[in-house]
């Protein structure tokens, strides 16, 4: 089915929403969600690059002869990126836990001892 440019628009919107959360939200956890949204948008963009109209999953076993397949490389890239995103989100959240333990607050406008 022809999806046109719709997924790319959605990916761009996800990135914009993530940047909005990073720029305007005060809570540390909401900023981590913002980072996660940007990452989701980029992953969606990456997967959509491989899509071919009416393509099947890129598996040779039991595939029909001469069948059109989507590109497998972006799928591999996206899997790698998702795993990296997992690691970074875990590290960000653990830092948020420690920051809350030390400062007592999750408001980013109060966590500014390192300034100047």
């Amino acid at each position, binding site marked *: 089915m022809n999806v046109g440019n719709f997924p790319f628009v959605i990916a761009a919107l996800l990135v914009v929403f993530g940047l909005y959360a990073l720029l305007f939200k005060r809570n540390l956890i909401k900023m981590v969600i913002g*980072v996660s949204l940007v990452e989701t948008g980029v992953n969606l963009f*990456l997967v959509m690059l491989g899509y071919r109209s009416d393509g099947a999953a890129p598996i040779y076993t039991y595939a029909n002869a001469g069948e059109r397949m989507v590109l497998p490389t*972006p799928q591999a890239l996206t899997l790698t990126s998702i795993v990296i995103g997992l690691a970074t989100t875990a590290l*960000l959240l653990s830092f948020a836990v420690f920051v809350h333990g030390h400062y007592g607050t999750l408001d980013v406008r109060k966590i500014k001892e*390192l300034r100047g």
Partner: protein
Amino acid sequence: MNTLATHAPVLLIAVPLLGAFATPLVGKLGRGARDLFVGLIVALTAALAGLLAADFFAGSGVPSIYVLGGQGLSIPLPSGMTVPIRILFEVDGMSAFMTLITALVTLAGAYFSFSYWRERSGGSMYFSLLLLLTAGIFGMELTGDMFNFFVFLEITSIAACGLIGFRVWLKKSQEAGFKVMTLYTLSGLFVLLAVALLYGQHGALNMAFIASQIGTLGVTVVDKIALGLLLTGLAMKAGAVPMHMWAPDAYGEAPAPTSAILVANSQASLYAVFRVLFTLFGIGASIATNGWILIVLAVLTIFVGVTMALVQNDLKRLIAYGAVSQIGYMLLGVGVGLVRRASLVVGGAALADKATALDYGFVAMQGGIFHMLNDAACIGLLFLTSGAVIRASGTRDLNKMGGLAHRMKWTTVFFIIGAFALAGIPPFNGFASKFLIYEASFKLSPFLSVIAILSSIMLLAVFVKAFQGAFLGPKVGLAVDAEEAPLGMLVPMAVLALVVIAFGLFPGFFVDTIVTPAAKALWYGRDAYIGAVLGGG
């Protein structure tokens, strides 16, 4: 001919990675075994880097590739062209030069850590993260593939932030860790977006292939968006103003030897900026614009970095702002080179002819690239010295320290050497590279040269302030019974000081042997870089 040097690119990544994952196991045997193991791994890595550099610089100087996979496997694309399935490492002059820098800084930082890390537990994890950071930096410098570069970029981000926030009992280090991790992740995602755009446009992730496609098809709108994202994301990781605000937090809160290695991390991102600008996008009518973007960033970085350093009261934040300022000098040198190269290309001159000391663009590039090495050595020395100072005086505040020079004579001497070298005082190495940058940027615009020289003088003022606060005067506070730093801390500092003095007294030899091939690899080595991968042409 298969010598160890041909396998060095992949071993430089594999050996620290092995060390990183084996260190917690070896650490169960005790502290001495862990220190011995990490010391061996780091020494082996440094030897491999030296072997790689010696093999490249003494040899033919042709870029060489190292392939994992691919010799017999190819997939046919719909266009009929077959593409080998492989992961590619490519070593050209600039990569070999950067591996030397990383090896030197890692050697000094790791050996300093053996005496510096005195906590009773957590040492294995600390060294594990340090080796992981090293593996990531070497990966960033040696890879020939864009997505592989992104993966190594994220490895360094995670390892670096783990080290910054390692001491979880300190309040500010957690704040610094969170801030730096958010910014590193965001810039990594922008780099990934750019890689995705390039993949969508050209169908390949291989740097040489994308470069040749851009060369033949020209720069499209998608390519320009990717260029903008790559430039800004990687310049942020390098610490260019106005995106530099994470840098004092990061360098200031990390343990002292790690700050030195984080500087190598920033320089690897700067190397990536140069690789993107010269090799990927080095052809086209608008490369002068890229050069001017670099020059604008450079001037801002130099000036804001050094002026903000003057008002810091925390010793490590002061040195960190100095490090940010020096990144501006590297950007300035290479930016001037890029602008000049653009005018030469448009004017139709052959670039290879102009790759001598008679063309100010090439001289600027030599200066900028040489400054990367000098800055890594000097800032490394300064951070290690600050670690010894903070150990001795128990505080990081310059207002509470004083009088350490009475007992800590060697540390004082090393601090003076590092400070003078970085501020560009003859006869140290900082003067040699800054001399090239001043003279070459003067020919493009005298304003650039004026800003550079004035900021060097102000950097000397900054270090005089730090020196007075920490070393001069009567003994204050804990400095009353401070002793000289232990030998395990003095030896790495001495090694870096020796590098500073040697590169200062014999700059001609090092510029001809190491820096000029690196500058040539960027200046006109684009075709050789592409040819090494795609073969012929």
